[in-house]
């Protein structure tokens, strides 16, 4: 048998092996890229929930006269620039009060309603969904007065993340 060049069999084996390696490497690359995108989405969710929870607890802690108007709406009083004002947190209703996937914050004059706050609203969080526990976002503690529980779930691409805490207004 001549030693010049490669036989057809050798070339075919080389091609098959090469194709196998390239396919495997490509598969691994795609899997890693998808996993990285999933992780990034989860990080975005975590950041989102964290920012909203931090903002709400800090403000409520410095506020007073907290009232859970309904499970997804909370009203309290807060001194802003030396003036006592009413602050609202609420989840949108899909209509006038914004998207159901968002939590909003609005400030209005003391005693002002949600409509007043809505005209001056800012978004605190998005990707908001119903809590898997079926608990509402805001609720009062079952036995202690003046203690409020916040439970916020955000979700995207079949991934969800829930943060829970409780807060006592200053006075």
């Amino acid at each position, binding site marked *: 048998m001549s030693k010049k060049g490669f036989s057809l069999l050798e070339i075919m084996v080389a091609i098959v092996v090469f194709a196998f390696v390239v396919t495997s490497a490509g598969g691994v690359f795609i899997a*890693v890229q998808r996993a990285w995108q999933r992780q990034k989405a989860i990080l975005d969710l975590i950041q989102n929930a964290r920012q909203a929870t931090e903002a709400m607890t800090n403000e409520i802690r410095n506020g007073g006269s907290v009232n859970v108007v309904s499970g997804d709406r909370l009203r309290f009083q807060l001194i802003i620039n030396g003036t006592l004002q009413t602050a609202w947190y609420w989840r949108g209703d899909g209509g006038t009060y914004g998207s159901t996937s968002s939590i909003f914050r609005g400030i209005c004059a003391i005693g002002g309603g949600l409509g007043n706050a809505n005209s001056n609203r800012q978004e605190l969080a998005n990707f908001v969904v119903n809590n898997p526990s079926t608990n509402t976002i805001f609720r009062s503690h079952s036995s202690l007065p*003046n203690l409020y529980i916040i439970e916020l779930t955000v979700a995207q691409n079949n991934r969800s993340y829930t943060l829970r*805490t409780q807060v006592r207004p200053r*006075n």
Partner: protein
Amino acid sequence: MKKGQALLLVFFIFIVIGIVTSSLAVMWKAEVNSRVLERDSLGAFYIAQAGIEYAKAVLYYHYDYWLYWYYWPLYYWPASEGNANFGGGSYTVTVSPDFWAKTLVSTGTYGKATRKVSCTLDLNSYYYYNYGYYVPSVHAWSWQEQ
């Protein structure tokens, strides 16, 4: 090329590929574990904060209940309080016996993570009028993570 050299070369390539693949796998697993820990850690942090807030509410509740100066709110910490399951995790709170400035330490646990936060409640600086008495406000300061 001598007989056997090609086989050795193939073995060498396979070993290199194996080492690279296993390294990537180990790194990836560590990354995933780190992400899970980060996620649980944030949950644990807010559960620990919830413990602090709970302690403040309990201490103040006991003041409102007794309403006498010698039951000042932060003086009394009932032995039955301090541990609770909360939001899929749990917290444990301890309260120092000091009278004027109590230190609250709360340990929150969620999933694989544990976080501990503390704060001091100041009795000297903040007073307000309530039910005919000047009482210390439950004002937390010096929040820190331990």
